[in-house]
């Protein structure tokens, strides 16, 4: 069964009397345990699509369904809080907090049931991702780019969600780090049954995914 579904989603900007479509009538489904990529060139609308999937924006027409329920009925804030974890290209960590504190911020916001000892869970999660306890206690701006992105991944996972959305997660990283991150994301999908959706312009990453969707001039198609 699909965890996330886009139904006839349209997103456009009103340009006087005419509409400039970014996304045109997109319908697709996403399942748990699968690593998806959405491939498109810069300006193709892939970040816009991700923002709709992550409830940071709303489609003009159409719906986004989570487990069959319209996310606007679930409440966009509540959806972001409890159903999805978002990883950004620019990491978007709170700069004056440590790595573990950044993870714990997300844990304190979600309403999902979490283990009592959240600090222990956070350290363990970071360790799993490849951030040692010593580094976990450093301010995030004292970590490398790759390490910061790992922290962002840990933050996305910490809330016990089924859907991980990543917007160009390796955009600011070198090739080596990019591979490491992609490996982590694959592991999350295959070993932890998460639905991982990565928006990227890199065909190398797309080749490593289970399903690739292509976005071009607002049109969305699955690549076989």
């Amino acid at each position, binding site marked *: 069964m699909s965890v996330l579904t886009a139904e006839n989603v349209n997103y456009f900007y009103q340009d006087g009397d005419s509409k400039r479509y970014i996304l045109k009538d997109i319908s697709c489904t996403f399942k748990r345990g699968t690593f998806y990529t959405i491939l498109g060139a810069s300006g193709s609308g892939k*970040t816009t699509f991700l*923002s709709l999937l*992550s409830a*940071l*924006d709303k489609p003009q027409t159409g719906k986004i369904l989570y487990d069959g329920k319209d996310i606007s009925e679930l409440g966009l*804030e*509540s*959806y*972001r*809080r*409890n159903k999805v974890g*978002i990883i*950004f290209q*620019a990491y*978007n*960590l*709170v*700069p*004056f*907090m440590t790595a573990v*504190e950044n993870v*714990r*911020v*997300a*844990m*304190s*916001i*979600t309403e999902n049931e979490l283990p009592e000892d*959240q600090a222990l869970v956070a350290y363990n999660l970071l360790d799993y991702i490849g951030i040692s306890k010593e580094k976990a206690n450093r301010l995030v701006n004292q970590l490398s780019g790759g390490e910061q992105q790992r922290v962002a991944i840990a*933050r996305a996972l910490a809330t016990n969600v089924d859907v991980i959305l990543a*917007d160009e997660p390796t955009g600011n990283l070198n090739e080596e780090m990019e591979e490491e991150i992609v490996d982590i994301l694959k592991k999350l999908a295959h070993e932890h049954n998460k639905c991982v959706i990565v928006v990227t312009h890199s065909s190398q990453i797309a080749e490593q995914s289970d399903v690739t969707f292509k976005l071009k001039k607002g049109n969305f198609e699955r690549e076989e």
Partner: protein
Amino acid sequence: MNYLKRAMISMKRRLGKTIILLLLVFILGNIISGAIAVQQAVTNTETNLKQNLPAVATLEMDYESYWAHQDATGEWAPAENLSSALIEQVAALPYVQDYDYSVMYTTFYSHDIERWNHPDPEFEHIIWEPTKEVDGLTQFDVKGIHNPEVLDINAGLIELTNGRTFTEQEINNFNQVNSFAIISQALADLNNLTVGSTFVLDNTIYDEFDESTWNLPPEELYSVDNILATESYELEVIGIFQPLASSRSGDEWQDAEQEIQLANRIYVPNALAETHTSFRVAAIEELGLYDDWEYTDEELESAKKPVYSSIFLLSDPLDLEVFAQEANESLPEFWMVSDLSNTFSDIASSMETLQWLASLILWISIVATLLILSLLITLFLRDRKHEIGIYLALGEQKIKVIAQIILEVVATGFVAITLSLFSGSLLARGISENMLRNDLIAQQGNSWDNGIYYGDGSDQLRYYAPEELTPEEMLENYEIALNGTTIILFYSIGTGALLLSTVVPIAYVMRLNPKKILM
């Protein structure tokens, strides 16, 4: 890591901005704290001064408005004397603990007893005694009283050292043959009088109406040949009094004058004092002098009525103002209630100036605090747009983000306003005391005697509150103290200003879109 913890981490880790906010609130808080402290001090000073005021009042002519009427209309308005009934009406007000009224202008003569003179020759002529140069003749201004207990005893001006006060019957049933008096110890000693002794007072009208008599020497003016009418009253001494130390002001001239007046004071029933007027008017009428003077019927009627002075002792000096308001409603035109609070008009005006200034500073500083803090917090939030965007992207409710901001502002601000509460009061104390002292000293020249602030005080009231009040003594009543009221008021205003200053920043946060910030 809820929003509370996030707030604490934010304040700790972004120390520079926290300190800037703290310093700003501290500076503004000093101004607010100082202004509130001064306001409270002024209110407390006024209350203290009023509480320490003798709670005495009198009814007297409002000469200012009377002359203003004459200036405006060119005519003298008819001046109505107060009746005993009207005085009793005012005395019936609930604030009055005790009262009395006396007939004024009651000069009696005596061949029987001598006047007491001050031993210091410097004060020999402090009170005008026209009969001084007439052998065997003295004059006394008797004090008629309505209150048999003698109000001056209750007011602490005199104490009875021998004998008793009057009875109601003695007050009400005066007759020429059987009347009573209370005299001073000084007068008693001088004239070998004791309780039970008698002496005679004469109600004598000398011919001083004709122009030809105006320049007569005293021995001729007050000679037997110049008497138009006379009648005598024998008075029995029923009590002897001694003036109390509280009646002394510390000023030697004023004290000497009071000493002479009290020493020669004879308390008699009002009825005896009233005979002075009625006898005098009847004699003048019989002589046809009112016709010569072309008195109208109203003028003649008015001349027949005795003129009363009144004294009211209130239960609480703080009731003076409300007593004056209610009593004034009963008084005829050009009459007013006078009390000792009028004598503090100089310090009152200095206090009012300070109060006004403190209020102005308070309001300006509150507005400035709101504007400056709103601006500062909004600017700080602009720097934190990215951080707030992250919280919102993670699904945090906007209300909790707002709560975090408010908590950071209020927690930092609370520390600052607590510090400024003390420093602001200290600063205000120094500045305001200097201002008040300079203002009071500058106004010192208004009083009739340097250091005594009795500029406009009724002569009668002076006897009931004779002590000098120097600027230093007045300033002793001025105290900036951190009492419960000041602290509560300051924290209410301070916290309120902090909260209000978050309104604009909150509006800013409400408009934030995490997508636009982060993507």
